[in-house]
């Protein structure tokens, strides 16, 4: 067998490293990979965005047919934008701070998931602006309905993507299943006597609850069980 090369490229350097055998090399690689911190993604933070939005959507659906409240949809759109903007930006700042902490590492998974979260928040901020200005200028109920539903579906899609990246398969079917069933039910009820806004807001609430909040709880539980 060919002897190991002399690794020293700079002989004058006194701090040169210890020579190792091939067997030791393999052990070292294994040991270092095991020592390396695994992903530390904090998906729980997304719940701070999910809960108020889901409650807001549910409240709008329930209040719309019973409360005689002028500009209810505009109020909701403002609330929606405020929540997504404030909480979303806070989540982005927290993630950025975490990555910049000393004695820190970012795994490949962390990096991709943070990218998904960043993109999701940015798209939702844009959507919330469109919802608010669209509501003010068009005053059309259909516009608000479809956009709220679209927003809820986007939330569900983001969690499906995160699930796929993390490869945690046990509960990964919940979000797409809940979203598909709710979408189908909502669209099939369009011609019923119920107001359109109530149908779509209830649908969006259900998508947020079962397609976003519940899967996050399952993800967190799976992560805790693993640890």
């Amino acid at each position, binding site marked *: *067998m060919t002897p190991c090369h002399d690794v020293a490229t*700079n002989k004058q350097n006194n*701090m040169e490293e210890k*020579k*190792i055998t091939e*067997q030791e090399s393999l052990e070292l690689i294994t040991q*270092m990979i095991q020592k390396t911190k695994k992903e530390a993604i904090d998906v729980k933070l997304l719940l701070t965005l999910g809960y108020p939005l889901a409650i807001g959507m549910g409240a709008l659906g329930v209040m719309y047919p019973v409360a005689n409240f002028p500009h209810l949809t505009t109020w909701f759109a403002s609330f929606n934008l405020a929540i997504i903007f404030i909480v979303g930006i806070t989540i982005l700042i927290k993630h950025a701070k975490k990555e910049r902490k000393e004695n820190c590492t970012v795994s490949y998974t962390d990096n991709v998931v943070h990218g998904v979260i960043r993109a999701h928040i940015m798209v939702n901020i844009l959507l919330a602006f469109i919802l608010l200005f669209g509501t003010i200028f068009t005053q059309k109920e259909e516009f608000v309905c479809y956009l709220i539903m679209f927003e809820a579906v986007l939330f569900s899609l983001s969690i499906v993507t995160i699930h796929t990246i993390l490869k945690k398969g046990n509960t990964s079917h919940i979000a797409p299943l809940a979203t598909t069933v709710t979408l189908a039910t909502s669209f099939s009820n369009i011609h019923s006597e119920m107001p359109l806004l109530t149908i779509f807001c209830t649908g969006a609430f259900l998508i947020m609850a079962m397609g976003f909040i519940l899967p996050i709880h399952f993800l967190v539980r799976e992560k805790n069980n693993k640890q």
Partner: protein
Amino acid sequence: MTELNPLLHSQLRLAIMSILLNVYEADFVYLKEKTESTAGNLSVQLEKLASAGYITKETDVGTGKKNRTVCRMTDLGHSAMQQYVEALKIYLSGL
């Protein structure tokens, strides 16, 4: 027989590369803690790996009291590690 890359066949440099193989990025303090090396030695070895193009070093300036050096493995580093592990397998299978 394929020769083991001399730049990687050293304890500390191999430890650094193994860590960076597993993560997207790691900072100097993290590497120092995991490799249990001294700051001076680590710094020298990081410089060698960086000049070989196996890793990149970025320093965040002005974010806190101290500068923070973040290291990432390059594509060249990835292929060097892959070749090194392949060569290692051949060596060990010959034993």
